[in-house]
Each structure stands twice: as structure tokens, then as C-alpha cells.
């Protein structure tokens, strides 16, 4: 089985979000970048398929040279090879189209992406790759088993979960649950050394065009001060929630 894990290079979850250039660009100053958490759960599941079922695992990212440390980290975790599509990621459609091209070129049977990135939160790349490559698709995926060309997955639905049967070629939108938090791997020294020797190929884009365009960013309006209620006066809390906030 040939697995492609899509890796989004995103600001660490603790990052302060600021903008520059008249609020048109994300301010990367002092920001640490990580593998998108939803993608990391998928990568870790891919490692399981590699170790238990002999799968080959390639990671891919669409972006400039600055995203290579994130791909190297994925190699240090255990992926066999990395691909960087050498173009700026503009929107979900453009990224999906570039990735679909990589999928078709490489003949991948299973594509694992995160259900969404934690920066753009578009939640559209995996579904678009599936539609563009005529693959089956399961998103919000919290469990995946593959047996030959048959696959069983569990997806989270609003208020529960659903078990589905499908087959390869398959695209997954993964999230926590695909593996547990405690299964995530921190690269060790041997992994980091080996990652330096693993192939990271830079491929030129097919120059897909974006369908949407980010014009400007805004930060939420700062919140007013909290109204504190004494722990001995909970009637007041109920009164405020009922009459002022109209929430109960």
C-alpha cells in the first residue's frame, strides 16, 4: 500500500495571532511552526500501517522552502520520503488541485489528510482531493483499518459516530482518535539523523489557480471585563443570565 500523508505547516496552537501589511498578511514574527495537529494523528496512523502492514509512507506539503523543517520532522517521525510542491498555498482549491496531481502521479492508494488545518480552517482539501481523483472519501475519521483493498472507518457525526465500509483508493480527513494523543511520536536523535538522508523532492506546481482570495484579516473585538458574582449569591448569577444575557 502506498500512503500519501498531506502535511500542513501551521502556527503552533499557542501562537498569538497578529497581522501585518495593513492586516492583509499573517505576522510570522516569533511564530513557531508545527505539523498541523489533525495531520499528525494521520501521520502516526500511517506509521502503524508501515510497521504492521508494510506500507510505504510519503509526506507532502504545498509551500515554499520555509516549510521544509516541518517535512523533515515528518521524516524524523518515520515517513519514508517527502515531496514539497514549490508554490505558495493560496486557497483550499489550489492546494487540493496541486495535491491531486501528486496523488495521480505517484499512484497512491490511500491519502491521509487532516480534517482541517488549524490556521485556515477551510476543511476542504481532503474532500476536494477525493473528488478530483475519483477516490472514496471519509472525513472526521477517528478509526481506520485497511485489509487488502477494503477499508473500514469510523467517522464522528454530530452527537455520535458512524461505522462505514469503503475501498481503496481512499482519502481520509483525519483527527484525534485515529490514534490517541499518547501514541504521537517525538522524533528521537536516530530519527532526526536518518531524516537528513531521506529523499525530500521539490516538484514544480501545475499552477492551479485559486478560486477564493483572502482580502483582509480582522481580530475579534476585545471582550469587556468579566462580571464577578459572589459564590454565596448565585441567585444573582441566575438573575443576570436570565434578565441581562437572556441565556436561560
Amino acid at each position, binding site marked *: 500500500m502506498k500512503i500519501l500523508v498531506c502535511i500542513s505547516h501551521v502556527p503552533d496552537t499557542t501562537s498569538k495571532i497578529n497581522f501585518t501589511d495593513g492586516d492583509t498578511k499573517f505576522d510570522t514574527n516569533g511564530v513557531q511552526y508545527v505539523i498541523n495537529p489533525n495531520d499528525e494523528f494521520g501521520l502516526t496512523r500511517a506509521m502503524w500501517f508501515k510497521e504492521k502492514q508494510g506500507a510505504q509512507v510519503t509526506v507532502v506539503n504545498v509551500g515554499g522552502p520555509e516549510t521544509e523543517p516541518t517535512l523533515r520532522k515528518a521524516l524524523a517521525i518515520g515517513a519514508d520520503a517527502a515531496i514539497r510542491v514549490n508554490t505558495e498555498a493560496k486557497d483550499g482549491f489550489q492546494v487540493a488541485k496541486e495535491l491531486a496531481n501528486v496523488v495521480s502521479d505517484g499512484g497512491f492508494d490511500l491519502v491521509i489528510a487532516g480534517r482541517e488545518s488549524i490556521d485556515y480552517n477551510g*476543511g476542504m482539501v481532503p474532500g476536494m482531493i477525493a473528488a478530483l481523483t475519483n477516490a472514496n472519501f471519509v472525513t472526521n475519521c477517528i478509526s481506520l483499518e485497511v485489509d487488502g483493498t477494503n477499508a473500514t472507518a469510523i*467517522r464522528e457525526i454530530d452527537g455520535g459516530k458512524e461505522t462505514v465500509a469503503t475501498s481503496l483508493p481512499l482519502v481520509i480527513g483525519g483527527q484525534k482518535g485515529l490514534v490517541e494523543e499518547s501514541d504521537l511520536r517525538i522524533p528521537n536523535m536516530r530519527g532526526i539523523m536518518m531524516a537528513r538522508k531521506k529523499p525530500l523532492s521539490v516538484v514544480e506546481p501545475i499552477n492551479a489557480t485559486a478560486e477564493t482570495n483572502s482580502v483582509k484579516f480582522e481580530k475579534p473585538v476585545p471582550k469587556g471585563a468579566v462580571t464577578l458574582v459572589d459564590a454565596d449569591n448565585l441567585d444573582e448569577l441566575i438573575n443576570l443570565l436570565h434578565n441581562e444575557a437572556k441565556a436561560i
Partner: protein
Amino acid sequence: MSVLVYTESEQGKFKKTAFEVASYAKAVADQMGTTVTAITINAADTSELGNYGVDKVLNVSNGDLDKFNANAYASAIAQAAKKEEAKVVVVSSSADSKYLAPILAIGLEAGYASNVVAVPSSTSPFTVKRSAFTNKAFNMTTIDTDIKIVGVSKNAFGLVESSGSVSSEDFSPTLPSLGVTVQSVDKATDKVTIADAEIVVSAGRGLKGPENWGMIEELAEVLGAATACSKPVSDLGWRPHSEHVGQTGKPVAANLYIAIGISGAIQHLAGINSSKIKVVINTDPEAPFFKAADYGVVGDAFEVVPALIEKLKAFKAQNA
């Protein structure tokens, strides 16, 4: 030319989000000087949609669609959009709608913006405000394709009633191969889900252990709320992952979010930020959550929560 909206139902009954996306579609249609057509799949009674501005319903009744399938549903909506020559298609942010929207976007060669929080600020260029960076910022985005798909964030627009009559016609799209078949669904039917809840009661490590969740469940029951938890609590296995809310868990966009014994890490706050009213109960007055909250009680959850339950019961009895 009408605005097409996919109004979701479950076991024949419309979800609340169906009325919200219908209200949104009506607002967009007014901006563009056109009408609203809804597509429903196996909904029992479509007349209710008239109360939220829908002019016409394309009613799909097909036993093969009893269980959700993203390919088939996306295909049905795409065929409806073509039939209506819709330039704007509106969907919700439910798990199912977010699942089908990217497939629909490719099918219609349409640009798709998800997590949209307001009506378009302009329809030419078509510009929408969407939340990004897990609610830590908003992004004004244009959709530059001929057909546009808008995914409306839950509770961002609300329900807007408008009286009017609705016409209904049967619609029989041709279905593609399913590709994915549902084997079983595991869903508690007696519990309010985080996705649908108006009120969410959430608790963190301050509760000290899973055995202490009885009072959280009781508080939720009194309020008709869903229960949720912080990331450490789900990582420790005290509560199921499905209750984890925050940046890597579920987003919460409730009317009222009550956080008990949760300090308010930035990742947690990001996930619950789009909730309207936030109440924090915590022993530590320095907990960062107080800065993000509307109302706060500094106190021991083991004293405050039982007292609050009693007082709420009395309040409910009085206001019943």
C-alpha cells in the same frame, strides 16, 4: 438564478440549522434581488421553510438516501443547483454538510468558503467574512468563481422569520455510486449533542476525577444542556473524546457556555470563542478564563455547582 439552500433534516424533521441557513439564504437573495429555493432530502413536512424565507422547495424522496452519503447528497444538490441555475449555494456547518461541501464544490466548479459568519459585505466581488485561526481571527475572502458555495457557521446568523408561502415540487436526481456505505450508527438519542445544544456545560481537571461528573451531568440536565470537557480530561480518559472541545477537539458555538474547573488555555478558548455568553466557575481568580468570560464565580466547584443546581431547579419551577 435563485439562491439554493440545502436544508438538512434528520428522520424527516428539519434540524435547527436548516432554518438558520434558510434565513441566511433569504438575506443573500434579498441582496441579489432573487428568490430562495431549498433542496430537502427525505423531509416529511416542508411547509415550515416558508417561515424562514424559502419560496420554493425541491423535495427529494428516495429510500436509498435514508442514510447520509456525501457523494450522493452532493450530487443531488449539484443537480438542483444546475436545474435552478443557482449562482449561490448555501450549506450549514454540520458534520454532514462540511463533509459534502468540498465534493459539491468540485462538482459545480464552484469556489467554497466555510465558517462564514455574516452575510456578504458585497455581492460583486462576492465577499464574505469567515472565521479562521480557530476563531482567533476573521478573514475577509472573495469567492471569484461563477457559482459560489457558502458554508454558514452555526449560530452566527440566527433565525430570521419572514412570512410567505412556499411551493413544493418533487425532484428525482440520478444518484452516483455511493463508494462509502454505512454499516452502523452509534448515536445517543436521549442526550443533547454539543453540535445542537443551546447550552453547553463543560468541566476540566478541577473536577479531580471522573467519579465527580455526576453533578456536571445533573447541571446539564437541569439546563437541557450538552456536556463537554477540556483536553486534559479527555486525554486522561475521564471523559470520551467526543466531549473534548477546543482547538483540536470540537468547536462550540452555543448561546451559553459554562466552564467549570477549566483554567482557559489559549487552545481551549479558541474552540469555544464563538459561544455567545461564557460563564466561568473556578477556584483560582487568576485563571486566564476569567479574562474571556462574561460572568465569573470564584469558588470551589464542589460547593458552587450543587448550590447552583438547587437554585436553578427552583428558578425553573418558578418559570415553568
